[in-house]
């Protein structure tokens, strides 16, 4: 599943047939066709990576939820009565400095330029405001995961309803929904998101201080609706031909009942699996918005803005952007791996075809 943001949101084009749709829909197209000999090697790798992915994501969720009460420095040093508690504060002088990660002190070139090195450096080092990058990354995880999860949730709800209606009722409604989705897909995904956030956030884009989480979530939800609608519609079409639906219809079940009780439960695993990979895509999209300075306001950390803020200082302090970038990379990788495992489990490929 591509992590590149348009790939899911935009690459299911107006007219992709199920074949293309499902290659996007998170099964790596190669897995089922693999000859037996090579498959064993992959499966062994799969088991290890699956657990790695699960552990990482559980830990990350835990950190994200508990960022404010876990025993680690907060990203804002001002809340400490004793400034020395804030590990990043330069002892003796109020000048805040970039500090390398604690484990990177071995290299001479990584040593801080001032002789008064801190007693304890953070795991990820500190940024040029003297804030600890690890704790900022924790809070960034909270923002990124929250935005990703909420927007995929909205997208899932809206997309499921629209797809179910379009697939089951069909006719004119189907055509209208299809046209609307075509129009939404006509914009490249990130461009649409930037356009929405940049133009329609409540405050002027220049005063980023007032920008809240709302417009970002709206923009990302809009991005996630069309692919989910299409997937739901394709699945509904498949299931509405099945015998149990005919049976339900023949005993006089209402259309609403058939949709909710007969079709929906069958489609849920597929949708959730797709939503998981979709969430990775949306986290990437949020990161891109934040990188361009268009996500939540600037003192609130998100991974994207942390990467952007360190990019001009790569020469002196590589850790400012590389550490959040690494965190983000591992997170996206884990979500993708898990999505892969799940889609193999639920046989998404067969379900769509």
């Amino acid at each position, binding site marked *: 599943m591509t992590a590149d943001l348009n790939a899911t949101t*935009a690459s299911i084009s107006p007219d992709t047939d199920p074949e293309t749709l499902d290659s996007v829909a998170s099964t*790596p197209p*190669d897995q089922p066709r693999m000859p037996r000999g090579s*498959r064993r090697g992959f499966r062994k790798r799969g088991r290890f990576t699956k657990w790695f992915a699960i552990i990482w994501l559980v830990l990350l969720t835990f950190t994200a939820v508990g960022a404010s009460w876990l025993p680690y420095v907060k990203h804002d040093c001002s809340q400490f009565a004793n400034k020395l508690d804030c590990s990043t504060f330069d002892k003796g002088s109020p000048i805040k400095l970039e500090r390398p990660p604690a484990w990177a002190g071995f290299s001479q070139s990584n040593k801080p330029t001032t002789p008064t090195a801190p007693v304890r450096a953070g795991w990820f080092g500190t940024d040029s405001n003297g804030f600890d990058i690890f704790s900022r990354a924790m809070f960034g995880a909270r923002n990124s995961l929250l935005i990703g999860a909420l927007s995929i949730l909205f997208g899932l709800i809206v997309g499921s309803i629209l797809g179910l209606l379009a697939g089951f009722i069909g006719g004119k409604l189907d055509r209208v929904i299809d046209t609307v989705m075509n129009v939404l897909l006509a914009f490249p995904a990130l461009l649409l998101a930037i356009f929405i956030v940049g133009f329609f956030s409540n405050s002027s*884009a220049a005063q980023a201080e007032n920008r809240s989480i709302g417009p970002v979530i709206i923009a990302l939800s809009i991005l996630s609706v069309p692919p989910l609608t299409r997937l739901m519609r394709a699945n509904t079409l498949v299931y509405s031909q099945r015998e149990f639906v005919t049976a339900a219809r023949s005993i006089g079940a209402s259309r609403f009942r058939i949709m909710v009780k007969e079709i929906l439960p069958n489609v849920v695993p597929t949708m959730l699996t797709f939503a998981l990979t979709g969430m*990775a895509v949306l986290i990437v999209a949020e*990161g891109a918005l934040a990188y*361009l300075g268009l996500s939540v306001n600037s003192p609130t950390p998100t991974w994207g803005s942390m990467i952007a803020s360190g990019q001009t200082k790569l*020469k002196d302090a590589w850790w400012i952007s590389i550490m959040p970038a690494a965190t983000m990379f591992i997170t996206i*990788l884990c979500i993708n791996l898990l999505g892969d495992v799940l889609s193999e489990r639920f046989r998404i490929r067969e379900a769509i075809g």
Partner: protein
Amino acid sequence: MRYIGQKFIQLLIVLFAVTFTVSLALSALPNSKERILAAKSVNPANVEAANAVLDSLHLRDSQIKQYGYFMKDLVTGDWGVTFQGNQSIKTSIWDGLQISLRLMVYAQVIALLLAIPIAIISAYRNGGFFDRTATTTSFGMLSLPSYILAPLFILLFSVRWGWFTSRSENTSLFDDPWQHFKDYFMPTLVLALPLAATYMRLLRADLIATLQGDFITTARAKGLSTSRILLGHALRPSTFSLVTAAALNTGTLVGGSLVVETAFGLNGLGFKTVVGIFGNEFRLVQITVLVLAMIYVFVNFFVDIAYGWIDPRIRAARALT
């Protein structure tokens, strides 16, 4: 013919919707009038001057009229001037478009050049060491957005090894080819690597399926060389989803170019859009967004057409729906 007609009507609907949304965005802006006046540094108390500015953007007309004027300006090429500095938007867009298109074409070409040989080798020795390495690497590449790759590349190529500068100028290919290469190397690679991973996975999967076909066994039985079988017989029938993906990923490229141009300071359309949003250059942003969306819409349209042309089965299948 009917297929093309259908596609064309669809294109018209999409074009209408895109232009309509973009044109009305200006007046749908929260506090649009105040903000535009502020951007133009006109005092709202000065009613005449304020009205002159609003009229030049047709903001005081009804929405339908606004759309009409917007389309007229768009077609006649009268795209107006930037809010600050009164520069022609048209020249600005034209300069940016050249850079962006160049970047996108380079990235697409490099991605294909990387993906096709790797996919062929992987598919040929399916399950071998090279294949496993390539598949795993490509999976990792898929999780690498451009804004993670960009700092990494700058760190490696420009800070550690000092091969390239971290800010790219736009040097013409013909003036100074070496400098041109140095300017576009990192942005192109950042855009191309994730694309190459996508393409490689698609092509590899299709090639593996094709290689199990009977005609490959026949070709082998005839005694054809491996390279002849792979390149002459197996490659062409396998490129179908690759072509689709390449077209669809224009959207990825457009989005990626926003990030990459900002990361490397290339003054293309994407960079202009981002800067424009922060500088309250709403008119400029409208046009850049429109131009970028148009690139995507038209590429998709032509690929759809070409598609039915290449493979009559598609035409038939599509006609049914």
